[in-house]
């Protein structure tokens, strides 16, 4: 089994993702960067974008986040995001429905997420 890095994606409401991954690609404010196992310690701020989780060379999970912070250590990466949507389990229709009942900022994010599907 290949070496893995532990991904944790946490929002104020809950721990959204907690799993081992081969590589995680994160939307940093200065550009996308990939986190592999044994990455050097890094604290990066993130912009709105999609976090991609790789397993066996393929993307297995895509999670849209609305900016946040990534705390990278050699063992894993912890992403703190105020809002996040798991694109692999929600449909664009569902997101649009949620957007209608949400506040302005939240609705904007959800609509963008629906487009990114």
């Amino acid at each position, binding site marked *: 089994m290949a070496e893995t890095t532990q991904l*944790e994606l*946490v*929002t*104020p*409401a*809950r*721990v959204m993702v907690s799993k081992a991954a081969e590589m995680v690609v994160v939307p*940093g*404010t*200065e550009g996308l*960067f990939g986190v592999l196992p044994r990455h*050097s*310690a*890094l*604290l*990066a*701020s993130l912009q709105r974008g999609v976090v991609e989780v790789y397993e066996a060379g393929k993307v297995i999970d895509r999670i849209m986040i609305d900016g946040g*912070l990534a*705390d990278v*250590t050699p063992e894993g990466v*912890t992403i*703190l995001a*105020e809002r996040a949507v798991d694109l692999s389990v929600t449909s664009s229709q569902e997101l649009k429905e949620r957007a209608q009942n949400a*506040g302005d*900022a*939240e609705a904007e994010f959800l609509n963008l997420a629906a487009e990114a599907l």
Partner: protein
Amino acid sequence: MPNLKDLKTRINSVSSTQKITSAMKMVAAAKLRRAQEAAESGRPYAARMRSVIASLAAKADKNSASPLLVGREDVKTHLLVMISADKGLCGGFNGSIARLARQKINRLESEGKKVQVYVVGRKAADSLGSELAGKTFARIEGVQGGVIDYGNAADIAEKIISGFDDGSFDSVSMVYNQFVNAISQKVTHTSLIPAEVDASDADSADEGSFYDYEPEEAEIMGALLPRNLSTQLFSALLESSAAELAARMTAMDNATRNAGDMIDRLTLVYNRTRQANITKELIEIISGAEAL
């Protein structure tokens, strides 16, 4: 001797009170489960945020770091964020918040500092009453009860930061009830500005002293510190509303039990009185018959 009709009325009124308290207890219990889940699942985010802040604060240079992190040296005015419930009937919940707030206010004032209070939730402010006259920085109600929105916490944080920036106050702390379990709450006082760093967080921060930053440290701080403030407020709101429901559940449970005891006592008196009346009538009849 109390008359039977009055007793009957008392018993009826106590038993309808009991119905209300037991309904309130059940409502609180049902809501508590959701609130407790929310409070518990909100903890990891707040905890991780604290440890990141701790690792930043541990290395921060006192002179160049953002005042949001290390605070201002000369504290003239202090802002106290007081989080209580909007509704009563929850035992000592609001009272203990008001008591701690009063203590803190008095202590700060005896140190010669001015105090402003950010009132979140109505009840504790009501019981402090005129003590808060001229000290209320802002007041917000109706954020608790139901689902707590992160946006509310962000609004409060924004207001605090703009007040801090224009110098209305130089340090900020909050008092709130922390949810421990269904039967106990802990009244907690936490410093928000300067950021509170506890020993365990600082320890774990030591290992990660060789961080790279992207972008620059200062920029990350600028984005992170306001976010940290709203996170801490959000988690305090979650804790507080779970604690409120737990307190209400316990208080209403006690009230229901007390009402039950009272009904038992009243029923006893009622039966005795009824028996006494019957006996009295019998004696009257018998002595009347004997007199013939």
